[in-house]
């Protein structure tokens, strides 16, 4: 089946920063993004879990964005500006997509 090169950007970011990140992404002209829940995690700032949590202060989400390679740099710059001073992880990997016209 005919597929096309694309980039998969996955950002694990604090839940409180989610809307700021997605706004930045829309700035960068992404055609879409999806937000996945993260239940728990561990890192240099210790372990955490969402179990029994009421507040939004603790916890991360994963924002996934599939984009065409030419938009990558702009997206990374805009996304990084949001994440920079916060904890979180930005990864980029190659992938192939169907229906390239959508990205």
């Amino acid at each position, binding site marked *: 089946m005919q597929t096309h090169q694309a980039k998969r950007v996955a950002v694990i970011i604090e839940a409180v920063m989610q809307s*700021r990140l997605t706004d930045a992404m829309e700035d960068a002209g992404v055609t879409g993004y999806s937000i996945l829940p993260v239940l728990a995690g561990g890192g240099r700032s210790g372990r955490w879990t969402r179990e*029994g949590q009421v*507040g939004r*202060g603790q916890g991360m989400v994963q924002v996934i964005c599939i984009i065409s390679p030419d938009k990558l740099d702009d997206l990374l710059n805009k996304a990084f500006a949001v994440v920079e001073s916060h904890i979180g992880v930005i990864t980029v990997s190659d992938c192939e997509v169907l229906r390239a016209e959508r990205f």
Partner: protein
Amino acid sequence: MEGMLALAADNLLSPIILFFALGVAAAFARSDLSIPEAVAKGMSIYLLFAIGFKGGASVADHGIDATLVLSLFAGLILSFAIPILAFALLRVMTGLSVTDAAAVAGHYGSISIVTFVAATSVATASGLTTEGYMVAVAAVMEAPAILSALWLIARFDKGAAQMDGTLIREILLNGSIVLLVGSFLIGCITGAEGLDLIAPFIVTPFQGVLCLFLLDMGLVAGRGLREARGVLKPGLFLFGVLMPVIGSSLGLVAGLLLGLSTGGVMLFMTLSASASYIAVPAAMRVALPEANPSIYLTLSLGVTFPFNLTLGIPLYLAVATALTGG
């Protein structure tokens, strides 16, 4: 004094405190007991909905008066002022950085709604009536402290805080404020009639839900304390039990000046003594990412909350009773 000890004693054996203790114990023993996030959120929505509505209904009952407006104003002032006091205290008592100190200070100017609810239960159990609008005072006190904290940063550590319009909106239209105020207003509008309609949901089962919610808080607090062992230095711990007492005394003064009932004074003391662990931490993560969350979370949820729940509330009640001659 004696009466107070007796009160403290059977307060310590009240179901809500025992369930909080159960949660802490389970967390320390690393039991896998846990309450789903959605259920915990559901219970906190229930509590805000219930106390907001009940407060409003009782205002509808007793009518609005000047004291209401003055109380809201007093709450506003206290929420702005307490962080500054707390900040000063932290700088002298502890080695916290400006950022961490400001972040912690913000929590103490704001309030813990569950502490407020627990105090209300104790007041009712001791046959005191309380001003229904204290719920509105609680709502008013949630946000200003955050602004104080950010101001402290701007003042003492130029430009560290990341403040923007979105953040201000998030702080003021915080979900719990909106639900508390909204339910309060709806309670005011629908009054006794509305209350009769939903009392079987928000009044009779209330204490039971509160027990389960405190179990959850115990689990979260216990987990936090376990994770943050290192963080809790003696100076910090001392602050965590001293600050509520200081805060409560400010609340006491305000309550007396306002001429509130014994129950009202006690609640004002409790509000000033309590520290936020929901609204403020979230705001701090956005505005002060460098501040170490395990410090303010451990202090507010792991030290000050249990202190108020166990010793603070009976103390505030005793003092309020003594000084209002109630």
